[in-house]
């Protein structure tokens, strides 16, 4: 078996499949308009990086030589730190959006109440106007009749 001859092949295939699934999920969410461009780009970069590491695991070796870090776990740690920073940023955005939603909801309730109150005032004025006009026309008719 190929995998028995070279365990790297199996690992590469597994990582590639995982990366492709991640990219497919991202693309699916973009297609469904559920992921905004700003976040889509970050996730796509993440997916492509995962795919590259899967296809060319030698990149790890280059990074190790370049950074002087020879432990794979440290590189994976760095990877998780990047993810952590990203998730933290997302939490900050969610907090800000929660505030915005709250403000909008409150504003909409106040605006609705103001509209209701204005409608009521318009109705009252209209009623008064109608009553005044009918009284006036009644008076006019009476005056006309008298004349």
């Amino acid at each position, binding site marked *: 078996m190929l995998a028995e001859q070279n365990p790297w092949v199996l690992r590469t295939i597994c990582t590639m499949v995982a990366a492709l699934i991640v990219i497919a999920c991202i693309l699916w969410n973009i297609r469904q308009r559920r992921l905004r461009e700003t976040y889509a780009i970050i996730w796509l970069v993440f997916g492509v990086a995962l795919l590259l590491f899967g296809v060319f695991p030698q990149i790890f070796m280059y990074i190790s030589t370049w950074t002087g870090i020879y432990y794979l776990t440290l590189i994976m740690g760095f990877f998780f730190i990047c993810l952590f920073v990203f998730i933290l940023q997302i939490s900050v955005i969610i907090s800000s959006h*929660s*505030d915005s*939603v*709250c403000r909008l*909801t*409150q504003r*909409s*309730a*106040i605006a*609705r*109440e103001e509209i209701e*109150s204005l409608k009521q005032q318009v109705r009252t004025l209209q009623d008064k106007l109608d009553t005044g006009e009918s009284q006036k026309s009644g008076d006019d008719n009476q005056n006309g009749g008298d004349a």
Partner: protein
Amino acid sequence: MPAFNEAASLPAVFADLQVYANDFDWLVVDDASHDNTSEVAKSFGATVLTLPLNMGVGGAVQAGYIYAWENGYDCAIQFDGDGQHRAKHFAELLDPLQNAQADMVIGSRYLDGVRYRQQVSRQIGTRIFSLVLKLFLRQKITDPTSGFRAVNKPLLRFFAKHYPQGWLGDTLEALVEAARHGFVVREIPVTMRQRKHGTSAGSFLKGAFSSCCVLLAIFIDLFEKKHPNHGKPAEDKSC
């Protein structure tokens, strides 16, 4: 008055208000109730803000403060829609505001021998919260989770802009924010109607857990930077 599915209890609350607070303007903030809370409140002549989404008590109370501030009110009383609070205490609540002795007056269940039965976890939680407030804010508050409170105009302005939306944002965290920004908080003894509480182990654990969360939230509030230019103004604070 924040209200969520309170259509059944509102008639009794309004009956109380009609006796003791007939000359007040009543505002009910319906927090996207599933029942006809808004209609019931309107039928009693209250102004109703109907939130299109459920925002929790904090969001609902803040909507009320925004409305009060924008409509030029000098003070506002926060009052629960479940019938727990009694309108007969309104005058006592407003007195320290009118005499410029405080910016916020809280109706306390535990002052001066007033007795109120509560779940053990809540009692312990309240004690701990009081201790934390005393340690960090130098204010002695016996009932920091009481939602029966009156605020004056400067604090109305502050709450219209900044109001915590957390677990007990409407009571405890709002109190912490107000005290941190230099507003004076006082308490007066009030009696409240007893609420029904569960006594099971599940509710004890739930109470203890939420107390821990709130305690953490208070520390986060204390750590947060103060809002610039929104502290207590130097102008006359009388109501």
